[in-house]
């Protein structure tokens, strides 16, 4: 265990509201660390709406989810947030000195004076193949987390899924020093959601004998001496057939789970964090909640409302962290201090 990272502010969630929180904290002269479960920033905008249109961001008549994320990243760049991606916050506890001790599931720890929960509808975690008892092989022969070649080098690999990740994993695993002994792509039918280019490459690889495709719906599994031997499939002809394997990598997409937020001892209402609308503080001093995860009278789950919430939360944090300072409202148009902070002075 490494020693905790000391920070004034920690933002949980790198969706649009979490990113804008970094911006507003930056304007107040507060540097932030950011944690997100996904391996990239953007949250729902990247995961669910990447190519879909958004029409209600003030001053931007139209953009896609990924364009909004790009613009926010540009906007927060002057404040150089420290990003800690691909990990989930598991625990928040208050220390005797009132600071907050935060730990993630990868073993990172933080000591923060303020925490901003911008966790949306929860952390995006990989969907697992649903078969009774299969979870016994999680982490030894069955993997849902981001594909890693070390798991299957020299072994018989089955990849389940129909998207870009599934097809790319098959192509990667069929060549190179860490190639699998055999590669089988498994999906319930011969239709894929991956890009046309990847589908063409996959079909070519099948034609070349570097991999194969099997259509079928997994209905069960078979193990011997505690080792997974095969999946049982219902094929499109309605017959049962076994599919032998050493390693199963599932690439079935991601789904959000609210997860441990409920165990952090914060006041909640219908699984959302109750905040006061002056500062967006939760029931715990120093912990703020912004965006889809909070609730208050009149709450609307809109990105633009999250931006407003993040702004007031940053002012709330200044009042808490620098209580003797007179909080001045400054405009980015005219304030030389804000220009300095933005790096444009």
């Amino acid at each position, binding site marked *: 265990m490494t020693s905790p990272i000391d920070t004034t502010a920690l933002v949980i969630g790198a969706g649009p509201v979490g990113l804008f929180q970094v911006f507003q904290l930056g304007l107040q002269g507060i540097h932030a660390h950011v944690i997100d479960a996904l391996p990239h920033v953007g949250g729902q905008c990247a995961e*669910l709406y990447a190519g879909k249109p958004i029409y209600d961001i003030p001053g931007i008549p139209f953009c896609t989810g990924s364009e909004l994320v790009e613009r926010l990243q540009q906007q927060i760049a002057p404040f150089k947030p420290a990003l800690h991606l691909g990990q989930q916050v598991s625990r928040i506890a208050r220390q005797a000195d009132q600071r907050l001790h935060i730990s993630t599931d990868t073993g990172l720890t933080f000591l923060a004076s303020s925490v901003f929960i911008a966790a949306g*509808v*929860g952390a995006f975690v990989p969907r697992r193949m649903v078969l009774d008892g299969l979870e016994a092989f999680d982490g030894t022969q069955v993997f849902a987390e981001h594909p890693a070649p070390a798991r299957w080098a020299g072994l018989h690999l089955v990849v389940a899924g129909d998207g870009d990740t599934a097809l790319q994993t098959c192509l990667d695993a069929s060549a190179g020093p860490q190639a699998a002994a055999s590669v089988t792509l498994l999906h319930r039918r011969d239709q894929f959601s991956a890009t046309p280019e990847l589908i063409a490459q996959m079909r070519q690889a099948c034609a070349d004998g570097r991999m194969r495709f099997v259509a079928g719906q997994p209905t069960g599994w078979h193990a011997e001496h505690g080792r997974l031997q095969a999946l049982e499939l219902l094929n499109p002809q309605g017959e049962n057939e076994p599919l032998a394997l050493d390693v199963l990598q599932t690439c079935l997409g991601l*789904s959000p789970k609210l997860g441990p937020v409920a165990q952090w001892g914060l006041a909640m209402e*219908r*699984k959302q964090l109750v905040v006061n609308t002056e500062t967006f503080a939760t029931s715990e001093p120093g912990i703020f909640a912004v965006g889809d995860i909070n609730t208050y009278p009149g709450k609307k*789950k809109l990105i633009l409302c999250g931006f407003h919430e993040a702004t007031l939360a940053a002012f709330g944090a200044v009042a808490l962290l620098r209580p003797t300072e007179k909080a001045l409202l400054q405009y980015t148009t005219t304030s030389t201090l804000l220009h300095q902070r933005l790096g444009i002075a």
Partner: protein
Amino acid sequence: MTHVVSESCIQCKYTDCVDVCPVDCFREGPNFLTIDPDECIDCAVCIPECPVNAIYAEEDLPADQQHMTKVNAELALLPGWKSITKRKAPMADAEQWKDKTGKLSQLIR
């Protein structure tokens, strides 16, 4: 407010929705899925998952489906309707039923 499963789900139960629900608020009956209005947080993540577009935000329900808000709430309270959190195969004849309307009389409580 809550989200509501409309009649389109009856006799189909594709269950794609239950995989994405961050608060596990779906309940399963013999031939229908319902949303527990006390658990739903209106995140709307389930709406695009349904292959037959059965799920609506309460205020967006079509005029002929308004009664389903009450039906969802009632079903969610039935002791036999258990939480479903993992996707499973749809009902055997889902394909034949998915585009039918006026299925309420088929609903098994």
